Structures are given as structure tokens and as C-alpha cells.
């Protein structure tokens, strides 16, 4: 594809802040503004501000909106109350993961799906196709929203000064309409950093004003703008999967260790949903012959494992790295890897990673690497 990269409503602002930009799924996005380690630490200890306008929003409305979602996705969307959100997935007929998603129930008959930027079109196409026969409308709302996230322990205080919404009453994985800095926004207590925080869905023309208001309100408590680079190390420490790394079409949710997102006990559509038969078999396989398991690895040395590198025991390949980075919080390189069940127990001895020819020792640990204190 030779098309020019897409720009978010905050593009000029990023450039004025001196951001290093990068192509991400066809969008020109901030990679970092200064040091990605400083940005990472700000989110862990104070607050960080992210432009996530590249994420894909799809609105589903109508009398049978929930029936459509129960059919198209693997989760039990019927049980999501108004104002709540749910982490779920959309799978192929063969059970392979097309994308992981967050679904917000905005009204009785109105839902918003948020898809990964790289999969937004795939998800839109799949949901649209699966809508045949349902009394529901599927709307591409990618251009309707800018998305700003404020994440970190100081984020409730920062946002409180700018909104009329009852943030104390807003639970984790919930989202409600309100105003921020005087403009309408969907305020959601979600994020991808392992910290408390909020995601604000706004009209693109309001994005710059809200960004500036948050910057001003957050400056006294150490809020800084953050790029995608630290977002990746934050989510890795929090053990959160990333599509294209831990999740792919060649894995079912059961292979990814996320079988719990698949709900077979749905009440709508007589329990029918796309991928059901294949996923039932995958669930059985997972019981009888455990697939490779997603584990955490912590380096004993300083070399950083990267996606695609082999996990080795006694010279034998027993797994593959899916994501790896130096962890600012742990001060050591960390990675997620799919490893044969025999070597997946925390504390398993003798596990190494083949880093450009040398086998570096690693400790197998349970995920996540980092859990915030509540």
C-alpha cells in the first residue's frame, strides 16, 4: 500500500511537542516525546497522556443489537449492563482469533466495539457480514471519535477537576457519557497500562482542547505526554496480550490461555455463535492435551528477548517469545512466551532464550510481572 499515513486530530500538537512519530497500522502516531523510560515511569507513579485515536470504533444499535453481538463475538454480551464494558474476542469459524475487543454498552440498545487499529477493517467487515438476519445496524465510527487516555495513579484527581461525571462511582471496566473540559465525552475507566486510568472518546474537533486542559490540570502532579513505545512496555509488564504477538488467527482463545473469555452458555440465538463448534473442540483439547502455555520470562542477564526468538531447554526448542522488552519497573529484560506445558511452571529450571546464537538464562514466572497496589 502506498497511501499516505492517516493523521489523528492531535497530529500538529504532537509535532509541536517534538514527538518522534512512527507508522502504526497506517497511522502516523507518537512513538515517544522524550525518553520512553521516563514516560513509562510517569504512568506507573504519576500520570501519562496518550493519543489512541487510531483505535477502531464500531457502533451497533437496534432491537437485536445484543443478539448480533452474542452471535458475532465469543463473549456473553447479554450480561453486560448499561454503562459497563467487557473484554472479549471475535473469532473465525475455525476458532482462530480475529481480534480482541472491548465492548461498551452505552444504552439499552446501543453498543460500541473498540477494535485494534490494525484489525479495525477486518472486525468491521466481519461484524457487518454476521449482522445479516438481525434487526441491528452496524456503523463504522472510526472517524467519529478521537481517543485520549489518561493513565496512572494521579489520573482520577486530574480528570476530576475537568468533569462533572461521578468518577468515584465509575467502576473499572465501565463507561458513561459526561463532559470533560466543557465538551461531551464518553468517559471510560479502561486502559492498557496496568494502572488506574480513563479513556475519553471525543469528537475529533474537541481533542486538542481536551488534551491541553488535561496537560494543564496534570502538570502540577507530573503528568507527561506518552507514546506507543512506553504503552508497549506498560502492557507487557501488566501481562496484557497484544494482537499480532500473543494473539493471532492461528491460535484459539484456549491456545492463548484466555479460554475464559469464551462463553458457551449463551442464552440468545439458542447458543449459536461464530466459531462455537471449533472452540468446543479447542476447549476439549486444552483439557486433555494442554497446549503451549503463555508464561512470563525474566532475564538473569541484560540481553533483551524479542518476538520470534526461540525458548530452549538443553538445546531443545520448547517455545517462542511473543513480546520482549527491558522492563523499566523491574530493571531487567522481560518477555512473554508460549512454552510447552512441561516447562511452563513458574520456577522451572534450565530455561533459556536463543539470543542471536547464545542461550541466555531466564526465569519462568507467572503473569503479570507487575500488579498495581489498590
Amino acid at each position: 500500500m502506498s497511501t499516505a499515513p492517516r493523521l489523528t486530530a492531535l497530529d500538529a500538537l504532537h509535532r509541536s511537542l517534538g514527538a518522534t512519530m512512527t507508522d502504526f497500522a497506517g497511522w502516523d502516531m507518537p512513538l515517544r516525546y522524550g525518553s520512553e523510560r521516563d514516560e513509562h515511569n510517569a504512568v506507573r507513579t504519576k500520570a501519562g497522556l496518550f493519543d489512541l485515536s487510531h483505535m477502531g470504533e464500531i457502533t451497533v444499535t437496534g432491537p437485536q443489537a445484543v443478539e448480533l453481538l452474542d452471535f458475532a463475538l465469543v463473549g456473553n454480551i447479554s450480561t453486560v449492563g448499561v454503562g459497563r464494558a467487557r473484554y472479549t474476542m471475535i473469532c473465525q469459524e475455525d476458532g482462530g482469533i480475529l481480534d480482541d475487543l472491548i465492548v461498551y454498552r452505552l444504552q439499552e440498545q446501543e453498543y460500541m466495539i473498540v477494535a485494534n487499529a490494525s484489525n479495525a477493517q477486518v472486525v468491521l467487515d466481519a461484524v457487518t457480514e454476521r449482522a445479516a438476519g438481525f434487526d441491528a445496524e452496524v456503523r463504522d465510527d472510526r472517524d467519529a471519535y478521537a481517543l485520549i487516555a489518561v493513565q496512572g495513579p494521579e489520573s482520577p484527581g486530574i480528570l476530576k477537576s475537568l468533569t462533572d461525571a461521578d468518577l468515584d462511582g465509575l467502576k473499572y471496566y465501565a463507561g458513561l457519557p459526561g463532559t470533560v473540559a466543557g465538551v461531551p465525552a464518553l468517559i471510560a475507566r479502561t486502559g492498557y497500562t496496568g494502572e488506574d486510568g480513563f479513556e475519553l472518546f471525543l469528537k475529533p474537533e474537541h481533542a486538542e482542547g481536551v488534551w491541553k486542559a488535561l496537560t494543564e490540570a496534570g502538570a502540577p502532579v507530573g503528568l507527561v505526554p506518552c507514546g506507543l513505545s512506553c504503552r508497549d512496555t506498560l502492557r507487557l509488564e501488566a501481562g496484557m496480550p497484544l494482537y499480532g504477538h500473543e494473539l493471532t488467527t492461528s491460535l484459539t482463545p484456549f491456545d492463548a490461555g484466555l479460554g475464559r473469555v469464551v462463553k458457551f452458555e449463551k442464552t440468545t440465538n439458542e447458543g449459536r455463535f461464530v466459531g462455537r463448534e471449533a472452540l468446543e473442540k479447542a476447549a476439549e483439547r486444552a483439557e486433555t492435551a494442554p497446549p503451549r502455555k503463555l508464561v512470563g520470562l525474566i532475564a538473569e542477564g541484560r540481553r533483551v528477548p524479542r518476538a520470534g526468538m526461540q525458548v530452549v531447554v538443553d538445546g531443545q526448542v520448547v517455545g517462542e517469545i511473543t513480546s520482549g522488552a527491558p522492563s523499566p519497573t523491574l530493571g531487567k529484560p522481560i518477555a512473554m512466551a508460549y512454552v510447552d506445558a512441561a516447562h511452563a511452571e513458574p520456577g522451572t529450571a534450565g530455561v533459556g532464550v536463543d539470543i542471536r546464537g547464545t542461550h541466555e538464562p531466564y526465569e519462568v514466572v507467572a503473569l503479570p510481572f507487575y500488579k498495581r497496589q489498590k
Partner: protein
Amino acid sequence: MSNASNPTHLRYSKEHEWLSPAEDDVATIGITEHAANALGDVVYVQLPEVGDTVTAGETCGELESTKSVSDLYSPVTGEVVAANQDVVDDPSLVNTAPFEGGWLFKVRVAEEPKDLLSADEYTAFSGS
């Protein structure tokens, strides 16, 4: 990102190393601020060892940053006479002081390529 100001007494390779003028045939080598900025936070540095022979334009170590690993090239041919242990212990020196405390290794120069750049030429080449 700040505009790199490339010291005029150094010479530069197109692989973004700098080279100090040789004193007693020994030159100091590092990477430029432009390269350090492009890498992001450097977290691991593997340098050639004292006694190794390095060859101009060939790999002699690696620099690992948050997002990627990059080969380190030598801008000259010769014998390594020193490696900067400070930068091995604290790789962030490459980012904070690329032209000073973040130097990487010293070489007794046997042969120097003809196409090393001046500061002005390098600034034009790298765009910063």
C-alpha cells in the same frame, strides 16, 4: 527532540559513528547524538574486547534499545585498546552524553577509510 550539534573536531561515518582525531594513533569512537536519538533509550551495550581487531565498516558489537537491537560498526580498522566499562554498566550514557562519557571504545588505527565525513557533511547527511 533536540537538534544534534555535531562537534566540529570529530569525523563521522555514514553508520553514525564518530571518531576523534587520533593521538599516538589511538582514536576514540562513539555513536552520534542523532543515532542515539533514533535508537531511543539504550539498555544494553556489547563492545569489542581489548585486543580484538576491528575492521572499518564491519560489525563489532551491538546496541540494544527498548524497541530494537542495532549492530555497532567500527569506522576504522585497527586494534581495540580500550572499551568503556562505564557505558557497559550504565548504557543510558549513550543517550545522555553521546559525544563525551558515552564513548564506546578506542582503537589503535591501522587504516582509515577515505570517506569519513566532516561535522558539516554529517549534519547534511543525517539531517540533524
